[in-house]
């Protein structure tokens, strides 16, 4: 089965930027996690997103047309920061893999994929 892992975190939490001290270590934990997914045959895809301040949202009402919003869909403290699309035997394995994500604080949502046109 395939699962989408949605990683939500507090964007105001401090984290090192490229070139700052601690950046290498910070990235190493994420790279190690990604490698673990690849080595275990779980990797399908994944991405890190720019902060939600860079988001543009198309709001569509019934028959009222589209409105562009400067910002994310939901104005919550925790915002979608990235995702992994993984392959796992069942929910137990997916949850185990999701729990190993090196996110210091936040919420990790695991959703089964219902249909993916380019799934092999």
């Amino acid at each position, binding site marked *: 089965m395939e699962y989408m892992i949605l990683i939500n975190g507090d964007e105001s939490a401090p984290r090192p930027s490229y070139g700052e001290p601690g950046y290498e270590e910070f990235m190493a934990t994420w790279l190690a996690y990604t490698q673990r997914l690849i080595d275990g045959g779980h990797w399908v895809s994944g991405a890190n997103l720019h902060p939600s301040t860079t988001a543009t949202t198309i709001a569509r009402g019934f028959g009222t047309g589209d409105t562009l919003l400067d910002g994310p869909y939901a104005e919550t403290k925790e915002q979608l920061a990235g995702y992994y699309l993984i392959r796992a035997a*069942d*929910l*137990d394995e997916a949850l185990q893999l999701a729990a190993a994500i090196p996110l210091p604080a936040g919420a990790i949502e695991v959703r089964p994929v*219902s*249909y993916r046109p380019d799934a092999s």
Partner: protein
Amino acid sequence: MLALLTHRFGDLGLADDAVQDALVSALSWESVPDNPAAWLYTVAHNRAIDLLRREAAARRRLLRAAPELTTPPPPNEEEPMIVEHSPVGDEQLRLMLLCCHPALDRDTQIALTLRLVGGLTTTEIAAAFLVAEPTLAQRIVRAKRKIRAAGIPLSIPAELGDRLHTLLTVLYLIFNEGYLARASEGHRLALMDDAVRLTESTDALTPGHAEVEGLLALELFTRARTAARFDAEGEIVLLEHQDRSRWSLSDITRADAALSSALSRMEPGPFQLHALIASRHAHAATPAGTDWPTIAALYRQLAQMDRSPVVALNRAVAVAMAEGPDAGLALLDEVTGLEEYHLYWAARGELLRRAGRNDEEVRSALLRARELAANPVERRHLDRLL
């Protein structure tokens, strides 16, 4: 039977539907077959295959008509998944663990366990938990859908500990719902028996787990008091006023056996401590003969394992009985987070009264308890105190 079929077809919803259909067809039996269980299993099994074929056919039609709406069929969908056969006991345990999977919320775990393992109907569960039947039916349908779509496995994890603890917690909640029933609510009181039955089968399926035996002992010690817990009018009778000769000796004897077996394993846990406390009450011939110092000491141990404020509240009451109301009130002052819990205010009022505090203080605590109590039996009891 449900567990067997679920394992065989890898689909809980399908298995449940098939069993239901088989049971409905059994209603038209003119005479009972020689082996009704085997007969039912065969009917349910054939029905499951029939349902699978029908689903496959429907999917093929949909695929032709609207290919963009269908998900690609899983491989071998024509042939139901046949898995290696294992003993019925394991199937049953798998099903129990599935119903109590941590990815399902607590109310759903309870409803599924009673429905799929306990064999209660949706109507019975809805009545027992005082929820509307459509709400409960919807909860079960949604859960089956999630189990299937999210791929919640029907398996026994290598590390059984946490999963078993969740299962025990669910069984204890079912038991408590029965314990909180009124004398007139026979169908809800029966939840105690359901919980005992399910705890017994969990014990049989996972031999050697001290906490399972601890929970069983706790339930039996508690159920033993049922006949003495209500007066002729159905009003609640407090532990100290109960006619102890009406306690069930057979429940107490069985509880003793389960508890001593649990303790011999040297794996302490909260259910065993609760059971030990219940056993001190069960073996006190009179209220005055209650071993309060031991009970207070057991609560102190329990408070170290379980930091919930309700345990802290019970500990304060036990200490008040062992050392006097002022010692109890001092502990009660440290309890936080129970401002909306009626028993906190009831205990506070009672301890203030025993400590000889002024009537106004006592009354306002009891009034607060009366305001918060949802259970009519408890509410009437507080009315009498007021």
